[in-house]
Structures are given as C-alpha cells and as structure tokens.
C-alpha cells in the first residue's frame, strides 16, 4: 500500500498516485472559495463545541486547547490580526482608499506535518481552509493518533449553508512512507503553497522537492525552547511553586516533543533558594504527574545517559524518578543550551543574570517561558531576546498554546494572495 487516506469514515488505501486526489481537490477550489468566511467561522464554532462534548475527541491530548482555539471569537480575532483588519477581503474586493483589495486563496496547499503533536494538523488545516484553500495534508505517522476522530466530528458539524462533510471535500489527509520520493514529488508539484513542519532533515528534504515557480513555501522548522526564572521571583517568599507548576505543565504536554516545550530552564542566582532547592521543587511537581504510558528505547537510552553524565560530573547534579525513566531534573552552572532529550527531562542551569543567556539566543530558539518577577526586567529581556531571533516570551504554563503569530508568522496572511483592483 502506498497512499493511506484518513477520512471521517476511517483509514482507506488510496493507490500509489496522487493524480486522482489532486484532481478531486481541484474540483473543490471554486466551491470553497465562494463560501462566506462567516459561515466557515460558524461551522468551526460548532465543531469546537462538539469536539469537547464528543467522547471520541474529548479525551485527546490538546483537545481542550483546540476547542478553545476554534471558537468563533478567537478565530475572528486571529483573522483580523493576520489580514490587517481586512477580514472581509476573504469574501471579495473591499475598498482600500480609491482602490480595492482582496485576499484570494493560493489554491492547493500541501502540508507535511511533524509527528509530535496529535492536534497539530488542525492548526495548519483550519487557517488554510479559512483562507479558502484546498488542502493535501500528509501526516507523519501511519497511525491516525486521533486525526480520524477529529475528522469524524468535523464531518458531523453544521452551520447555516454548510456542513463539515462538505468542507472536508476540500481536504485530503494522507500518509505514505516518507522515503517515497515519487509521492513526495507529486505532492510538491501539485502545490500552490507548501507548508512544512518538522525537524532539520525533514525540512531540508521537503524543501528540495521540485515545485512550481509560483509555489510559496512556509516552514515551521526545528526549534528549541527555554525557560528563565529570575532572582526577584526566587527571592520572594511565594510564586516559585506556581512557576514550577506552569513549567511542568509545559513539559508534560506532548511529552516535551513540541518545539515550544522548555528543555533548558535558566535559574538566576538569588539570596533565598539554591539551585538544588529549585531542582527539588521541580522534582516534587514532576513526581505528581501521572506515569508516562510508554517510551521508545532511544529516548530511554538518552535519558539514562544524561542521568549518568550529570551524576558522574562533580560540578553537576541530578534528581531522577525511581520508577524507571519517568522524569529527570539535571542541574549545572553552565550557561548553555543543553541538547533536548525530551520526555520530562529538564535541564536547570544556574546563571548570574539573564543577560548571560542573551548570547545563546538566536532564530532557532522559539519560545521563552519567562518568570522574572519584574515587568521592567521582562520587557528588557524580551527586547534583547526577540532582537536575537526569539519568537515568543510567555509566562510558564502557556508555552505550548498555539497562537498567532507563531514562529514570527501570521499564517493566514501567508496562505492568501493579496490582489488589487484599481478601476
């Protein structure tokens, strides 16, 4: 079997050639382009309510956040921001001074998804549909990981003049082996826009695929995220527990595989709490998490290696779960970004000041979970960090909340073509 197609009715074999799928998506282009954006927002609002109620989707990791994100008010706000306040331009020409402006779909958007977050495809698919594109979505894994259930609930959603089932005619969600060059090339050549999520190797390989001259490419590449806990917060009597709680939530969700999950957390030296005490706070909170359901041998090995390495080096320390490779807190005083191990492995690194971290930052650092305990310091840090290339500075606990802009991009704005009329 070459192409595997995920539909609201389950997973079906779909041959070894994208031509029929691309042709069928092509037939939907005009139809979806004519659906008023308000109808799409109403349909997605209904989807958001259903997915939180429906037993097939309510328990999915990230469903709660996805449900909130899909609400009409949130998506409308996102569209206003992404389209510079010209939301109506999605439905046709709108006056712009003496001229007219419209936001037209690119056409077919081919999307290569990363395998780390079950709900991730929705955060690309929905913006692309709101921009009225037809979408060919390649999942990273042959397992549906809940995508089939999300599609089923979306198919049952309704709003005036449109149903989820009709909307899904403009979507093909597929999987095929990533090494299948022919299918990757077909998918790339069919695209008017390519949207790529993934690690370095995947991004490089997909970017190199042949594409049509007009095709635009939007890349959400490999990123690394960090946390910073400031001395002011650490010197205060309380506040640390809430910060630790937030960071541990950011670590636990998606098993720290998302690019927005903190890997290294810098701790400013302070008068009240030693690095070891901060480490113990993290350990206590991590120990309260439900056990991980499973773990691959590679990550297990990586966890055991950093544990040993941090234990054997006398300038470092480590606290680890006693029940296998469940969680690990590594501590040192080296201002560096540690290689991400993931799966509840936190590197706490003591620094004199957040200013020591700034030289480490660059475009590959996406999110900083910021807990400096001082707004002026936070602003100064954010200025320096974002100037260096960081995309977001947010409080601990919401690091993985997908929002717009993401990685510096207003996605819907990139998924439309701005066209003009000067009569």
């Amino acid at each position, binding site marked *: 079997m070459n192409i595997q197609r995920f539909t609201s009715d389950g997973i079906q074999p779909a041959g070894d050639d994208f031509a029929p799928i691309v042709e069928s998506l092509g037939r939907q282009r005009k139809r979806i382009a004519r659906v008023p954006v308000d109808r799409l927002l109403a349909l997605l609002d209904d989807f958001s309510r259903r997915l939180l109620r429906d037993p097939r989707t309510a328990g999915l990791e990230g469903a709660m956040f996805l449900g909130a994100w899909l609400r009409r008010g949130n998506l409308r706000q996102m569209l206003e921001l992404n389209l510079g306040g010209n939301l109506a331009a999605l439905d046709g020409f709108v006056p712009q001074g003496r001229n007219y402006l419209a936001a037209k779909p690119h056409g077919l958007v081919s999307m290569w998804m990363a*395998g780390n*977050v079950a709900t991730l495809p929705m955060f690309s698919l929905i913006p692309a549909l709101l921009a009225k594109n037809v979408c060919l979505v390649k999942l990273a894994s042959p397992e549906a990981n809940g995508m089939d259930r999300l599609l089923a609930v979306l198919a049952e959603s309704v709003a005036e003049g449109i149903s989820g089932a009709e909307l899904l005619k403009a979507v093909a969600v597929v999987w095929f082996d990533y090494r299948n060059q022919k299918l990757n090339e077909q998918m790339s050549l069919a695209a008017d826009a390519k949207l790529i999520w993934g*690690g370095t190797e995947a991004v490089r390989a997909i970017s190199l695929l042949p594409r049509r001259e007009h095709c635009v490419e939007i890349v959400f590449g*490999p990123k690394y995220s960090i946390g910073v806990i400031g001395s002011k917060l650490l010197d205060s009597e309380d506040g640390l527990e809430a910060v630790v709680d937030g960071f541990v939530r950011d670590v636990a969700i998606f098993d720290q595989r998302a690019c927005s999950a903190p890997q290294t957390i810098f701790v400013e030296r302070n008068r009240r709490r030693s690095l070891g005490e901060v480490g113990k706070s993290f350990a206590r909170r991590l120990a309260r998490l439900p056990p*991980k359901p499973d773990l691959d041998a590679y990550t*297990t090995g990586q966890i055991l290696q950093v544990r040993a390495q941090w*234990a*054997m*080096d006398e300038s470092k320390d480590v606290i680890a779960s006693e029940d296998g490779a469940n969680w690990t807190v590594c501590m040192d005083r080296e201002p560096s970004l540690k290689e991400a191990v993931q799966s509840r492995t936190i590197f706490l690194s003591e620094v004199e000041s957040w200013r020591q971290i700034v030289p480490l930052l660059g475009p*590959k650092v996406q999110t900083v979970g910021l807990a400096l305990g001082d707004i002026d310091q936070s602003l100064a840090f954010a200025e320096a960090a974002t100037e260096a290339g960081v995309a977001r500075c947010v409080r601990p606990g919401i690091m993985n909340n997908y929002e717009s802009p993401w990685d510096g991009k207003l996605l819907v704005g990139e998924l439309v073509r701005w066209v003009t009329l000067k009569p």
Partner: protein
Amino acid sequence: MITRQIDTLIGGPQYAATQSEKDASLTPILRSLCREVAGRCPAYGRFLDKFGGDPDSWQRPADVPPLPVSMFKRFLLSAVPPEKIVRELLSSSTSGQQPSRIFVDKTTAFRQSRALVAILKEHIGNRRRPFLVLDAADSTAAGDSLTARGAAIRGVANFASETVYAMDRDSGGDLSVQWDRVGDFFDRHRGGPVLLFGFTFIVWTRFVLEAERRGAAFDASEAVLLHSGGWKKLADQAVSKDEFSGRATAVLGAAPQSILDFYGMIEQVGTVFVDCSSGNKHAPAFADVILRRPLSLEPVEVGQTGIIEVLSILPTSYPGHALLTEDLGVLVGIDDCPCGRKGKYFRFTSRVERAGIRGCGDTFAQSRELR
C-alpha cells in the same frame, strides 16, 4: 575470597549453571566489585551513590544500576593508578566522536584473556589450528593501546598454531585481500581444521563479496569462521544474518553451523556471547545479560525485546561490571536452549535507532546552527 570465586567461575564450565545458580553466584561478586571500583573511581562512585543505593541491598544482578556504555567516551573511568595500567583499549569511533577509552590492569588483562579462551573452547574445542585473520596485521600492532578489532584478534589468536593475515592496507589505507596469500593458506590446509576471524562488515565487504566477484571458492570444509560487530552497516545494506552465513559458507565450502557470530564490546573484552548451534547467544558463567524494558527498565519476560545490558565480573581496573548498551535484543529463553546450555539466551536484533518522528522540538541545541 572474591578473587577465588571469580577465578573459579572463569576456569569452570561456562554454560552448566542454571540462571538461579548464576544469580546466586554473581550477585555477591558484583556487590563487592562495584563497591571496590567505586571507591577507586570517583566518577563511578558518584554514579553508584546516586543510582545504586547500598550494594548490600542488591538481591540479584538486575539490581546493579547499569552504567550507559557511552560514559566511557565522556569520562576517563580508571580505578587504578596510571602505573598499574598495562593496556588502553580504544573503541572505533566515527569522525568527530570521542572513542571509548578502557584502562586495563594486569589482573583484568589476565582474566580477559583466560575468559575468552574459556568461552571459545566450549564452542570450537581446545585444539590449536591454523588461523587466518580477515584483517591486516597492523590492526594488532604492538603498543600501549589497542583497538576493539586488535583485542579480539589477539584473543582468538590463543587458538592459533599459525597466524596469517589475509589483508594488507593499500596506499589509501583501505583494506584489500591478498588473494595469493589466502589461496596459499587454504591450499596448505586443504580439508583440515582452520580458524578464521574478522569483523562482520569487513568479512562481508572485503572477503565474501570480493570472493564472489572473483569467482573464488575454497575447500575449507573444516573451517570455523568467527565474526563480530558491524551489523548496523550490514542491516543498512539489507544483509540478514542468514544471508551472511549462507554466502560465507558457500565461499569457504564450510558447514552453515561453522559460521559463529559473537556479541561483545571493547568495554568488556573477554566477555563474549557466542552463537550456539540453535543460533542463540549465551552468557558465560562469569557474565550475564539482562534485557531491559524501555521506560520501566525492568527485565523483560521471555519472548520480549529489550535494551541489552551486559554484566561481567572480569574488570578490576574500570567500572565495566554492568553496562547498558545501545543495542536491542530479544530474550529467547532461560535454561532450556535446545543446544543444552543453561542460563539466559538471547538474540541481538538491532541497534537502538533514533525514533523516526521526534517532531519540531527535535533540534541539536548546541550546534552552531542554533546561533
């Protein structure tokens, strides 16, 4: 006391004890050795303090905390003063990577040598025989340090009545078989018992494939080919163990059961896990194998796959008693292998591969690219 117990296990039958007998004999020795080495190797001492608890509480070999084998690449783990080191063993390493460095004292070297002989004689018998090394002579060049290949060749050479190196290095440093030399070796010992040894990937690429290409075949019906290491590269070329053995026997004119793969590593020289006639690998009396489940790290049940941990009571000069490898294996059974050997038996399945999908958060933080 411990010394006598270790020597008894090395000198005795290698596969006669049941697993429960092995657990009972190895556990107190491991307790004593780990405690002793931890006292002389501070880094290992810290590791044991952190993850081992009180060695007296260890009830079975699986209670010994396994040290990830890669730590020998990151730390100089010696438990003896420099003047006591008689040899430094070096792992092969890919470019840019640190090799493992293993510091061997006289006691360890002596035990490693005896141990390898004790194991191999139970598989190939006592008799010395002509030995064709499927490698170049400089692999065992004399000096203070020795590579994994050199150590293995020297160990197997204990069974040699005459040693011939099949390969030379060409001007580019690549290995090439000297077919005249090889032909002469097989002509001189036609039909007689001979011993061959080489690293699996070298045997395959330089000897078997090249012999097939040349149409070379030998009359070595009494040959035994021992080989070890390098399965990842063969797996990358989609060469299975059966295919390797089948085509090697065809070139040599030997019986299929005379191709013996063994599992071992530079960090535990002397402790090898050799294929039996049923194709399973057995732990000798002075060593053990534990296959650990990912995540829980508990030993797997029979029939299940786990991360391979190897235990050995040979080293006294470095903390190599319980090592977690980067390999996966399946625990085939305990005490009931059709070959008659007791204890656990397993099969190597693959290297632990990086999970295919680790997502957009999977980046190398310290690479220059990050800046």
